[in-house]
């Protein structure tokens, strides 16, 4: 895991640790001068110091005041006011001495900070985008504006866009600093379409669903076809168009074997076709002369269906599609309405 | 042996009072508790808290208190003696199982007694039937507690069983031990009659509450032994 962190407010005048180390080194060099034996007077009797005593400690404090030469460009740049174009004009690998902000990169360990920017190989490896900060992009956009046509102002809302351009084609272009201008990913074409925009009846829609399978998202009513099998974008685009057309016309054709579709093959629960409706019909149309026949499943013609039967059907459908306590409660009310002759006295909750 | 330990503790505390260095005490008494000795035991039950005086509260206010143990809770139905019984019945740290078994035993005690109660029609008979399993348990425990125990003392190469008076703690512990031991005496597995530990414990509790049964017999036998060895009683001191 790597982390590239930019603090929001870079510390102004912040001196990295390394500078501190250099400073210490210089201070030590300065103080060691006083130990140089050549500086001593030759005539003076030299004592043998078994354990040398540092006599000139006070003078060394002066040396400590000396500042090292600041040879880093970054320390002279104020990141807020910097002209980024001049700091980093084009793409190149990372240089810690040009970037005036503390950048960190590296694997995070518990209770450790990531490595800072100096001598950080990870930072040098990744491509940086310092040459295209927002200000630069803005300037470049301004520059090419004169070559563009304005967006049609009649299409001022999303609904209008969708109405006039129901088909969305998505392709990606890639730019490289490599010798080739091609990218294999550029050939991929994605087309998106809302199904409400194409005419489909009950059967066609059912068949269309089966043909496109998981390419249709019922939450957003969107069909998404991605084509990438041909080498060129143009070919892929044509292929996507072909797929859409073929699916559409195929869904409108009715084959002979489609009449053999059973209840188990149904996409959704249709109460009227199910045993539930037949059982209800049998109960409603029941007469004493039907006694003794072990099981009888009638059908109820649409004109004989009373509103309470439809309510029961809706409740059954709701329960079958997802059983909840509320659904069962609804079903209970509907069933009581249908099954009981006198209305049961409601109990106070 | 526990008596010996008590004595050791007593002598240690005297030493400590006299001013023996603390490290000696640390050497002699091994403490396995995670809490330092300054920590006091918690008063966890609301009823007990109500009994505390304001002075006791003031003292407790500035002391470190141990966390309550897992079997100490604020339930209305909490009973320390019951928890003790659970610990005595428990094998291999299976406290939940031990608790279930004891609850079963209590249920069995209650079932027989309550049915007896409801079958007895007149008030006079009903009054004499103890139905509360906890009450029966407490009564049984009281009846099983011995007053005296024997301790081995070696005199002239002969080990005498010397009767000694015991404190309530030891008596309770013995009573628990006997109750559980008599309930564990059972026929070999092959001849298992379907009578489980809980059945025998229930029976034992009921018997002991009426001052009969194996456990009470054990106590009486111990008392008899003490009576027989009365003559050696002075070996305790000399």
């Amino acid at each position: 895991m790597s982390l590239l962190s930019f603090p929001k407010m870079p510390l102004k005048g912040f001196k990295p640790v390394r500078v501190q180390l250099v400073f210490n080194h210089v201070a030590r060099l300065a103080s060691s001068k006083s130990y140089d034996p050549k500086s001593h007077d030759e005539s003076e009797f030299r004592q043998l110091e078994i354990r040398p005593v540092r006599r000139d400690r006070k003078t060394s404090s002066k040396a400590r005041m000396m500042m090292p030469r600041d040879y880093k460009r970054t320390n002279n740049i104020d990141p807020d006011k910097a002209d980024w174009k001049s700091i980093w004009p084009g793409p190149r690998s990372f240089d810690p001495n040009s970037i005036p902000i503390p950048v960190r990169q590296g694997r995070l360990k518990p209770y450790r900070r990531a490595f800072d920017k100096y001598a950080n190989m990870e930072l040098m490896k990744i491509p940086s985008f310092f040459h295209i900060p927002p200000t630069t992009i803005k300037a470049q956009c301004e520059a090419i504006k004169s070559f563009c046509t304005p967006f049609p102002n009649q299409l001022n809302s999303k609904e209008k866009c969708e109405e006039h351009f129901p088909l969305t084609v998505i392709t990606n272009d890639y730019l490289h600093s490599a010798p080739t201008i091609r990218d294999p990913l550029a050939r991929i074409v994605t087309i998106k379409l809302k199904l409400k925009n194409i005419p489909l009846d009950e059967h066609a829609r059912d068949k269309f669903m089966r043909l496109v399978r998981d390419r249709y998202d019922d939450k957003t009513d969107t069909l998404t076809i991605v084509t990438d099998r041909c080498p060129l974008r143009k070919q892929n685009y044509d292929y996507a168009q072909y797929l859409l057309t073929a699916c559409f016309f195929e869904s409108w054709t009715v084959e002979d074997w489609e009449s053999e579709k059973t209840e188990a093959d149904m996409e959704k629960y249709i109460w009227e076709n199910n045993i539930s409706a037949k059982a209800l019909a049998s109960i409603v149309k029941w007469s004493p002369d039907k006694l003794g026949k072990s099981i009888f499943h009638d059908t109820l013609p649409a004109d004989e269906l009373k509103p309470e039967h439809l309510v029961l059907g809706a409740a059954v459908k709701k329960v079958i599609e997802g059983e909840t306590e509320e659904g069962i409660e609804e079903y209970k009310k509907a069933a009581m309405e249908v099954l009981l002759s006198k209305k049961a006295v409601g109990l106070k909750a | 042996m526990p008596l010996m330990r008590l004595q050791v503790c007593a002598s240690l505390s005297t030493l400590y009072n006299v001013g023996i260095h603390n490290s000696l005490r640390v050497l002699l008494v091994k403490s396995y508790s995670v809490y330092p000795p300054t920590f006091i035991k918690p008063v966890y039950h609301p009823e007990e808290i109500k009994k505390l005086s304001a002075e006791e509260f003031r003292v407790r206010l500035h002391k470190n208190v141990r966390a309550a143990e897992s079997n100490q809770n604020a339930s209305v139905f909490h009973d320390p003696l019951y928890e003790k019984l659970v610990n005595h019945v428990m094998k291999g740290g299976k406290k939940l199982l031990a608790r279930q078994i004891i609850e079963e035993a209590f249920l069995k005690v209650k079932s027989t007694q309550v049915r007896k109660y409801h079958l007895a029609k007149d008030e006079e008979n009903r009054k004499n039937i103890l139905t509360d399993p906890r009450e029966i348990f407490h009564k049984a425990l009281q009846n099983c507690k011995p007053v005296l125990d024997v301790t081995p003392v070696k005199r002239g190469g002969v080990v005498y069983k010397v009767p000694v008076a015991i404190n309530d703690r030891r008596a309770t512990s013995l009573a628990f031990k006997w109750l559980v031991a008599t309930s564990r005496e059972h026929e070999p597995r092959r001849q298992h009659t379907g009578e489980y530990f809980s059945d025998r414990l229930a029976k034992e509790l009921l018997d002991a509450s009426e001052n009969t049964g194996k456990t009470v017999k054990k106590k009486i036998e111990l008392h008899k032994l003490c009576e027989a060895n009365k003559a050696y009683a002075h070996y305790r001191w000399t």
Partner: protein
Amino acid sequence: MALRILHNELFSHHVGVMQRLLSSERVLSSAARTAAALDTSNPDGGEASNKKTAQPKIVASFRTQESNPTKHKESHLSRYYTVPGDISKTLFQYGGLPKAYEKLCHIFTETAIMVRKPYLEVTNCIESVDFSKPAVRIVLYGKPGHGKSMTLAHVVHYGYSAGFMLVHVPWVNTFMRRCKDASPSESKPGMMDVPIDAAAWLVQFRTQNQHLLKTLNLKTSKPYQYGPRDIIEQGEPIDALIEFGIGRAKYACDVVEALLREIKGFSNSGLVKTMVVIDGFNGLFAPNLKTQRRKILEAKCTLALPFLEITQFDWCNGVVILSVDQLAHHDMFKAESNLPLYLLGKEGWEHIDPFIPIMVDKYDTAEMNSSLDFYIDRRWIQHPGGQTEAGRAELRSLCAGNGFELMNLCAPL
């Protein structure tokens, strides 16, 4: 004093929370009790004054003297009534009450059942059923321990009092999951018979419907031949068929089928009204049969068929009351829901659709208080703490309205 209060807070904050939780319940419960006490005079007054001449018996607020379930109404809600001893023996001798509660009844020397909302819903439905129409199916559902089986027991008593012929299966899984004996069926190849359980059910049927069998003088509608010599002629009393099934357990499953078909016929012709009560109905749709020794037999059970047949709607003059239970699911530890469709499966749902589902909910506060009072009265709760409001509150919150849990919690108290 302030210190003391502070410490109370510190040491027993959880106790405090509990008590605060309960204080609202306490108000509720006392309100409910006073309401119930006021009510007592209303439904029981007439009966009680007729019976007692010397001394009017004081009825506790959690009890009702009304032992006829057909007369139970909303004013009796959340109060216990006692099933008369002889009726209790007739109805529940061979099961019908939950096992644990049966033991309790033995200890209490009475069978007391609480009048609850689902029961009233069921009876309301039964009363508004048109008996000339196909049998109405009513299904009880709810979490385990909330009282489905107790409600069914109450309904069975209702059926008995209202003069229904009872077809009562106390627990389907006694033969579907724990059958005593299983042997390949002769009449239905590829299926298994459970002779002992079938014979036991016939015994139960005979006991529960003794009075009707004696008075109605029912006759078989067609001859039955089981073995070369085992023939039951047309027009023989139905008792003969039952006797035969009990005596020749080998044919008991076939006899049950014949008997239930006969009963359907009697109901259709208007001789009797029939009430079918099956507890754990979803157990009938188990894919296989399991014996008492936990052996799984990959075959369907023949005894399930007649009960499935009688729960269909192709007959009239009957009402069917079923319960679906998580514990009756063929793999009860994996059952995730207690709702009817999940438990019955598609097949089961289509078998009984349309039906009236009735939920058996957890105990409400009044019911909880009433059952606590009942337990205290019956000496099932004797711990002095259990009789205080704090103890009651503790029990209430621990069992969370589950009657079975409450019973278990009170067991060692």
